[in-house]
């Protein structure tokens, strides 16, 4: 059979970023700092959509179990760690980030990096899903660290004032919780400074994402999923800014010189949801060989909102209540339709992640609606981001190939 690839076997179909070394170094330093913070009694585990600027302003270091889940997935030990949690009685239906995290607390010696360092506090915000609370409660039972929940009820449309003041009261509660747990006074000035640092990193990141409107796109999906690590873990710190300055410079350089993330871009697609970490390179690079790029995705764009000026707690409450996982389906559909238009995309792939009901819910309607509004075709593929037992490569391949046959 003639290979579908249009490149010779020796020539790579995708281009590695020069800043990947800086990324590795930045994240290694971050991991070391979480170990140190844990020893000093100043480590909190934090959910990905948490208003992290507040604990950072208390000099508390944040570690992200979801990011750890991505490492577990990439290291292909999802089934093993999820299995440890299942032995404790957790259901296979539970999010695989939660299962692998709980599994790693149970058996750190068999986990990548021997698990995340022991936390002194568990900070959950349910603006991404309700699972996080039960998950952190389970970890709390195992580690003794107290949980604080920033409750952000789902929003439909504009945020009413009672919603805003409710969320703000939860942030005030958080401040009290952190003052007591870490024995430190709240410093509003410091929080404002941290928020400014956070905004600066978010702006750099957003500019890099927006540069992908260029043809060929300077970043493919896997590039963005890996490079988003500092915007999740180091928001509000100078390290994040330093990394994204270098990152944006490389992206702009690629744009200026017309250097694409993939060698021969023919088809531009949108990606929705977390990626299958255990096969992320294989998936996107195999498609890159066929000339398929993903200049935009719904996931990495979730960290692109600036904290507005104004009363700081209110501003934080606004930004974090309005992440689109916390809003109705229409907000996400609107976002994806505008990405398709703005980035000139010809089709879309919705990854239905078995673990993440919140993100995957409504994809059938979403698919119909996006095609109706934009006229471009899409497919739904099924699987999981960490638990490779729930992913069937041949079935995924057939669906994506059929989509490409519809486009070309």
């Amino acid at each position, binding site marked *: *059979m003639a290979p579908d690839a249009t490149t010779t076997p020796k020539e790579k179909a995708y281009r590695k970023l020069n800043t990947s070394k800086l990324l590795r170094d930045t994240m290694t330093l971050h991991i070391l700092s979480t170990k140190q913070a844990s020893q000093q009694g100043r480590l909190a585990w934090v959910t990905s959509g948490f208003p992290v600027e507040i604990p950072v302003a208390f000099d508390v270091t944040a570690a992200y179990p979801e990011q750890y889940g991505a490492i577990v997935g990439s290291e292909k030990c999802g089934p093993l760690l999820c299995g440890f949690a299942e032995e404790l009685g957790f259901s296979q239906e539970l999010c695989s980030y939660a299962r692998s995290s709980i599994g790693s607390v149970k058996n750190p010696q068999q986990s990548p990096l021997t698990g995340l360092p022991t936390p002194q506090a568990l900070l959950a915000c349910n603006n991404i899903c309700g699972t996080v609370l039960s998950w952190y409660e389970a970890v709390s039972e195992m580690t003794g660290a107290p949980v604080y929940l920033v409750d952000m009820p789902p929003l439909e449309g504009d945020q009413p004032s009672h919603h805003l003041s409710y969320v703000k009261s939860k942030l005030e509660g958080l401040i009290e919780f952190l003052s007591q747990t870490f024995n430190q006074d709240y410093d509003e000035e410091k929080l404002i400074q941290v928020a400014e640092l956070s905004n600066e990193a978010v702006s750099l990141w957003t500019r890099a994402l927006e540069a992908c409107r260029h043809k060929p796109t300077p970043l493919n999906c896997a590039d963005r999923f890996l490079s988003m690590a500092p915007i999740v873990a180091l928001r509000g710190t100078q390290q994040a800014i330093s990394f994204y300055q270098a990152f944006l410079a490389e992206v702009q350089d690629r744009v200026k010189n017309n250097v694409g993330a993939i060698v021969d871009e023919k088809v531009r697609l949108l990606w929705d949801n977390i990626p299958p970490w255990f096969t992320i390179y294989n998936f996107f690079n195999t498609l890159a060989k066929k000339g398929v790029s993903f200049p935009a995705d719904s996931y990495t764009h979730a960290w692109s909102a600036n904290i507005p000026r104004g009363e700081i707690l209110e501003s934080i409450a606004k930004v974090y209540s309005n992440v689109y996982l916390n809003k109705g389906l229409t907000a996400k559909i609107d976002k994806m339709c505008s990405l398709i238009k703005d980035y000139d995309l010809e089709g879309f792939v919705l990854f239905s992640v078995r673990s993440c009901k919140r993100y995957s819910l409504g994809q059938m309607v979403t698919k119909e609606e996006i095609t109706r509004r934009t006229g471009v075709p899409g497919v739904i593929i099924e699987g999981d981001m960490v638990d490779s037992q729930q992913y069937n490569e041949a*079935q995924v391949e*057939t669906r994506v190939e*059929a989509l490409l*046959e*519809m486009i070309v």
Partner: protein
Amino acid sequence: MATKSTLSIGIDVGSTTTKAVLLDAKRNVVTQYLLATGASAQKSVQKCLDELRKSSQQDLTVVPVISTGYGRRQALNAIKSVTEITCHSVGVHHLNPEIRTLIDIGGQDSKVIRIGTDGRPLDFELNDKCSAGTGRFLEVMARVLEVSINELGSLSLKAKRPSTISSTCTVFAESEVIGRIGTGESPSDIAAGVHKAMASKIATLSQRVGVKSPVSVTGGVALNPGFLYYLAQAIQTELWVPREPQYTGALGAAILALGGGE
């Protein structure tokens, strides 16, 4: 640009059967062959090609082959592999250009494809995760009822009061059927219930892409009159079935191969 060929071969390597079609330049079927895929897809591909050669009495070594189906990558001499979604659309469009929705029920999967006026797929839904709504479902039920798979369809058409089989899951439906036998319901009523359950599963899959008439049914299960009867009821539309519904995917692949796979 690839040159147009005077002959072409399409080969559909399904999970249950492998089908091959040899076409001439005018898209007439010269000969075709079907066999059980068995344990080795590569062997069944080779066997199909040998049979095409024997019955056509032609040297087919330079004839372009396009493969499709789950084992499409196992056809090592194919110039290209194309998904069954596209091949089925192209195949049924050739047989009846009016068709706008295709329901293909294979041995272990089922698919619904909405087809554009040019014969290309516009949208599709695949069920390849479980045996509900596939030929396998009917095979299991036929075994429990102790009839052959070929008899099951006509048996169901003799039903007086079709049983209610509420589960579309093969494992659960099997116990339900055993239960119905126990309560003395007639084999024909149970067979009708089985087909109704299967038809409702396919109707749900169809609704996901939206059924647009005229509708065609292909795949081995399209030869089952009982299933067609209940499916037509479930989706409330007439169904068009090609004379040899199992060959549609291979036919589409052969048509694409005639154009050099473009």
